[in-house]
């Protein structure tokens, strides 16, 4: 019982103990309040900062696409956050060594600063990039890592890759300064992805303007591209386009099966001012190991990574069908997969006119490898893939 726990301090001697305890406890209100205020701030500030969708004049989808095409942003710098979730098992290094396998037989042959090796890392996980552009001749792309950075700098005829962690430099040259370096690197900015997506737009696609949004503090229109063909694994592609410059600021690809976006690339900060000229200056630091482009070409560097190309197929591939349900096929020349092997256990067995095969699934791409070594792959469902393979036979 606690009969003394009253507000009136009548019996001074006896009520002293509990009220002292209460006063002591009251002091802990301060740290608890501080914590509460902090939690509320963390929770509320983003909600308050989200000032709702901006009011912009109405625009049709066709006008918006034209705006993107006419966009002539020459100078830009910003921070890009890219998240890819293909639903692959987390293979870590294996994945990138597969992608660059053709280039380097052993790890030692390559350079840690070679762009082909480094930028494949973008194929999974979340990464922060910095981009800077000043006209067609000067671009810089940096991949921010923990206490290190990988930079790809194009300045005039030179292309430099610098990996600060290992202090290695890659150097290449471009004969025509215009555009080539831009084409050589895998897509990394929202603009790259948006252009690839717009290439696929045809009469089997619905393109609409879906309101407005704020991206990186700028008002933008939202363009939604939806494949209408059945069998595509692409649910919808949403592109936020800056209302003033027509520059795509954010690109999101959601799979038809639902869930988190497969690819989400967006600026978190963007400025259309001219970047400082020193940004594009690069001299290899003293003592850095420099690899020249020619040293790597012995092994034949793959120019493109198949899984990243949404529209076009690399050489030696046949495209089946058209539009979003295009299936690429090529002959590996081998005898397919050894039955009962490790890779076999990752896929599902299927039978059809093509014999038997194994389907490997990710959240976006499905690939069918048949017994006789033919590969069919596309952003289509398993059923559509098997059907395409049967029709091809």
């Amino acid at each position: 019982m606690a009969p003394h726990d009253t507000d009136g301090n009548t019996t001074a001697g006896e009520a002293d103990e509990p009220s002292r305890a209460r006063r002591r406890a009251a002091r802990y209100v301060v740290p608890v309040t501080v914590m509460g205020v902090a939690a509320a701030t963390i929770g509320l500030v983003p909600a308050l900062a989200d000032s709702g969708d901006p009011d912009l004049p109405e625009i049709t989808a066709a006008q918006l696409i034209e705006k993107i095409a006419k966009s002539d942003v020459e100078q830009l710098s910003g921070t890009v956050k890219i998240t890819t979730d293909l639903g692959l098992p987390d293979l870590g290094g294996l994945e990138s060594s597969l992608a660059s396998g053709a280039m380097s037989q052993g790890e030692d042959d390559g350079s840690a600063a070679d762009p082909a090796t480094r930028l494949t890392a973008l194929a999974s996980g979340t990464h922060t990039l910095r981009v800077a552009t000043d006209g067609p001749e000067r671009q810089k792309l940096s991949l921010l890592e923990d206490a290190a950075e990988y930079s790809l700098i194009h300045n005039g005829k030179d292309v430099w890759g610098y990996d600060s962690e290992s202090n290695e430099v890659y150097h290449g040259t471009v004969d025509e300064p215009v555009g080539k370096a831009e084409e050589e690197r895998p897509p990394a900015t929202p603009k790259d992805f948006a252009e690839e997506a717009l290439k696929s737009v045809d009469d089997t696609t619905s393109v609409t303007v879906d309101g407005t949004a704020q991206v990186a503090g700028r008002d933008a229109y939202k363009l939604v591209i939806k494949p209408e063909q059945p069998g595509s694994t692409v649910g919808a592609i949403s592109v936020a386009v800056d209302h003033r410059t027509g520059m795509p600021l954010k690109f999101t690809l959601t799979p038809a099966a639902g869930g988190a976006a497969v690819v989400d690339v967006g600026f978190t900060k963007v400025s259309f001012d001219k970047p400082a000229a020193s940004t594009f200056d690069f001299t290899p630091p003293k003592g850095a190991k420099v690899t020249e482009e020619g040293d790597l070409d012995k092994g034949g560097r793959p120019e493109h990574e198949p899984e990243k190309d949404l529209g076009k197929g690399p050489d030696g591939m046949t495209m089946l069908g058209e539009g979003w349900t295009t299936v690429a096929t090529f002959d590996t020349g081998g005898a397919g997969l050894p039955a009962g092997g490790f890779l076999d256990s990752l896929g599902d067995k299927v039978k059809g006119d093509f014999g038997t095969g194994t389907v490997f699934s990710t959240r976006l791409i499905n690939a069918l490898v048949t017994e006789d070594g033919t590969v069919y792959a596309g952003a289509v469902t398993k059923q559509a893939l098997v059907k395409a393979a049967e029709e091809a036979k």
Partner: protein
Amino acid sequence: MSRAETAVPGVRWRWTFGLFRSELLTTLRRWRTLALLGVLVAVPVLIGVAVRIETGGGAPGGGGGGEGPAFISQVTNNGLFLVFAALAATLPFFLPMAVAVVAGDAVAGEASAGTLRYLLVAPAGRTRLLLTKYATVLAFCLVATLAVAVSALTVGALLFPLGDLTTISGTRIGFAEGLVRALLIALVVAASLVGVAALGLFVSTLTNSGIAAMATTVGLLITVQILDHIPQLHALHPYFFSHYWLSFADLMREPVYWENLTRNLGLQALYAAVFGSAAWARFTAKDITS
């Protein structure tokens, strides 16, 4: 609690400063503190000599490829990078451990030595005594970080060439600007320890045993660092005081990438506010028996 609030303000401030100075000198004169600083000074020497021996005969640069603490591959080409490498090597453990020992000892050490009540006999008031103790611990954070930085700079200048340096973004900056960045990094590293200091001070007010407080704080430090590496707990990671520690390296980017730096400083301020006020709540209401 304090009954000396009626004193003349000027006198009070001078008195507080005197208390702070005597506290700081007492702390820095302890053998324990000197040994901790000795260890911190030795780390850059060890790294510098090891890198020097490793690359002594062969070609400089190149190899290594991302092993060891950050920045280590550039040390052979520019001694200034030893400052960054040494801070990156000591920040995860040596520096916070030293701070945890000093902070854990702050109040509990006095209590176990039986000197706390004598300190409170002076007309200081418990709040002001606690603030002085915290200021002393913060001053130690700065002293410890600068000890590492100065030792690394000396070793780096003796063993390796100095000169213009390449930022991790690939741009070049002059040596003078490099030094300014090194100082800025040292300050950010010192500020990164503010959270541990507040946590240690709070633990120190909970017990009358200095050893128990130090052990608890160092234990918490290790636990948090381990939890920070468990991927399943990623939702909690942004709230661990050690999570953004290595963001000081972002100062070496061009332009500087502020996002994680500001998060780190904000988090440290939050820890200081929460555990500082908790320490106050505990200390001002505590029965001082020794």
